[in-house]
C-alpha cells in the first residue's frame, strides 16, 4: 500500500532573518523522505497556522534566533488551539536557552531542538511521533 508521506511545515516567524538552520533541517527532512513546505522569512503566526491547515501538515517546525521564542511559541500554540488543530506535532528550533525548554513544553511544544542538535535525532523524533501513532 502507498504510505502517505509525512508533511512538515518549516516556518520562520517574526522578523529574524537567520534561516540557515531552518533550511538545513528542511534539506535533512526531505532527504529522509518527508514532504517539506518552507514558509520563507518574516511570517506572521497567522500565516504559519494557515499554511499548516492548507498543507494538511503533520508537523510544524518553527525556527527562532532572535530571543523572542517564548512569546512567538505561545502565540502559535494559542492559535493552533483556536483552529482546533492542536494535534499537530510542534517543534521549536534555534537559539533556545536550556532554561526555556521546560517553559516551551508547558505551552504544549512537543520537542525543542536547539543549535547543535543532531539532524538524525530530529528525523527520528518526527518519524516516531507520526508513524508510531498510525
Amino acid at each position, binding site marked *: 500500500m502507498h504510505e502517505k508521506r509525512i508533511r512538515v511545515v518549516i516556518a520562520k516567524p517574526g*522578523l*529574524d*532573518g537567520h534561516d540557515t538552520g531552518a533550511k*538545513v533541517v528542511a*534539506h*535533512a527532512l526531505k532527504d529522509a523522505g518527508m514532504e517539506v513546505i518552507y514558509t520563507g522569512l518574516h511570517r506572521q503566526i497567522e500565516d504559519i497556522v494557515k499554511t499548516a491547515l492548507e498543507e494538511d501538515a503533520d508537523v510544524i517546525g518553527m525556527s527562532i534566533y532572535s*530571543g523572542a521564542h517564548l512569546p512567538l511559541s505561545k502565540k502559535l500554540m494559542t492559535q493552533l488551539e483556536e483552529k482546533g488543530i492542536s494535534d499537530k506535532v510542534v517543534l521549536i528550533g534555534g*537559539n533556545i*536557552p536550556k532554561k526555556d525548554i521546560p517553559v516551551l513544553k508547558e505551552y504544549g511544544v512537543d520537542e525543542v531542538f536547539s543549535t*547543535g542538535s543532531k539532524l538524525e535525532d530530529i528525523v527520528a523524533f518526527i518519524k516516531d511521533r507520526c508513524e508510531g501513532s498510525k
Partner: protein
Amino acid sequence: MKDKKPEELKDVVLESGIAVKPVYGPEDVGDIDYDTEIGQPGDFPFTRGIHPFMYRQRPWTMRQYSGFGTAEETNERFKWLLEHGQTALNVAFDLPTQLGLDSDDPFAEEEVGRVGMAIDTLKDLEEAFDGIPIDRISTSLTINPVASVMLAMYLAVAEKQGIPMDKVRGTTQNDILKEYIGRGTWIFPVQPSIRLIGDMTEFCSQKVPRFNPFSVCGYHIRESGATPVQEMAYAFEIAIAYIQEVLGRGLKIDNFAGRIAFNFDIHGNLWEQVAKFRAGRRLWAKIVKERFSAENPRSMVLRMIAGGGGGGLTVQQPENNIVRGAYYALISALSGTQTMALCSYDEAYTIPSKKAALISLRTMQILADEMGLTDTVDPLGGSYYIEWLTGEMEQRITEVMQQVEDFGGMVKAVETGYIQREVSRQAYLREKQIQSGEIVKVGVNKYVMDEEMSEVEFHPFNPEVIAKQKSRIKEIKASRNGKEVKEALKALRKAAQTDENVMPPLLRAVKSYATLGEITKVFKDVFGEFKEPVGL
C-alpha cells in the same frame, strides 16, 4: 605511536575543494612573477596589502558590533567601549528598525530593542550619539534596506552637532543583495533596492566624500554556509552589480570606487583564510582596473573589515570561543585587514556581556601591542605554500564568478533564488560533514564534555523598552509640525516615483521627525515588497 609512511598520510582537502600537499617548495611558485602578480605593498595588484607600511603606520581599527535596548542604553555602551580604547563604532539596530517598522507596529512587538537599539525618529539617533564627536569617530551603521533613511538621520545628527557633511566619516552596510542570500532583512524588490544604493552612492560622492555608502558583505554569505571561495566570488559579483548601477548614472568609476568597502568572515582553516584575502585583493584590483578601466590606484584597493565570525563559534564549551576569537584575530592581522571586529565568546547565545566584549577588545590589543603583528607588512608573503594557495584561491574565485555571470549576473541570480539554493545546499553539506565528524569542531564532535556547568549568562531583555519607545513616538507625533511632515513625505513620494535622488527629500523628512515607519511606508507604496523564492 608509529609514524605513518608517506603513502598512508591522510588527504587534506580545504573547504574550497583544494587538495593540499604535505610540503611546498620553490617549484610550486616558480612561475609567479613578483612585480606583476604580487607587488610591493601599496602597489598594484595589492596582493600584500593596500598601504606601503600597513600597521607600522596605523594599526587596524577596532570596531566591535554593539547596541541594544534604547538609544540611551546604547549610548552608555558606546562611551564605555570608547573609554576602553575602541577606535570606532559599529551600531546594532533592532530588527524592527532594520526592517523599517516603528516600535508601535503590531508586527514589531516581540522584537523591540532585542538584538540592537530601537530607532523610530531622529530623536532616538540624536540620543544615541549624544556627547560622541562624530567628526572624529567613524561609525558603521549596520542597516540595509532602510540604510538611506539612517544615512539621512546620521547626517541630520551631524548637522545638529555643527559638523558639515563633508567632514562626516562612516559606513552604512547597505548591501541589500546579500540580505536576500543570508541575514534576511529585506523589504523591497531587488531593482528599487539597488536604485536606493545608487542614490546614496551618487549623493555621497558629491556631498559626503568621506563616507562609504555601502559595504559589500561576503561575511553573511559565508555565515549562511558558503565556502570561502563562494564568499569572495559572490561578494565581488554583488559589488559589480552596484558599480554597474552607479556607472549607469553617468558617474566615473574613479568618482566612487575608492569608497567601496568590504566585510568578510573569518573561521575555518587559517591558511585558506589568509590566502583568500590575498587572492581577493589581487583579483579585485584587476577587476576594477581592467574591467572598469579605473585609473586611480585608490579605486582598485580592497578595503575591508574582516572579523571573527559567529559561524565558527560553538554553543558547546563557550570558553573555547575566546581561544577561537584570538586565532581569528591573528588571521585577520596576517591578512592585512583595515578594520577588525570579533564575535565575543558568548555571542553564539546572546548579546555580548561587558566582560565578553572587553575580552574581544583586549584580544585585538594584545595582538597589536604585544605580539609583533604590526611590525612588518604581510609576514606570510613569500611562503611557498601561501603564495601557491593564493593563486589557487584566485583561480577558483574567478571560476565561481564566471558561473554567476553565465547565469545572467548577480541580480538575476538572486531574484530567481539561484544563489540562495547554492548556499543552502552548501550549508546542508557542511552540517552533515560536522555531524559525521569529517569537519572537526572541538567540543562539538570531538572532546565532547558533559556541560551542565557551562551555560553563559544571557543578556537580560528589558520589556520596558517597548513601552518607552511607544510613548516616545506618541510624544513626538504630538509635538512635531504635522504639516511639514506631510509635505516632506509627499516630496519623498514624488522622488521615489521618478528618477529624482531620494536623499534630499529624505533629509527633509527625517528632520521633520517623520518616523522610520512612515518613511518606509512611502517606499513600500511606490516600490512594493520582495517575494522570496522559497524553493530549496
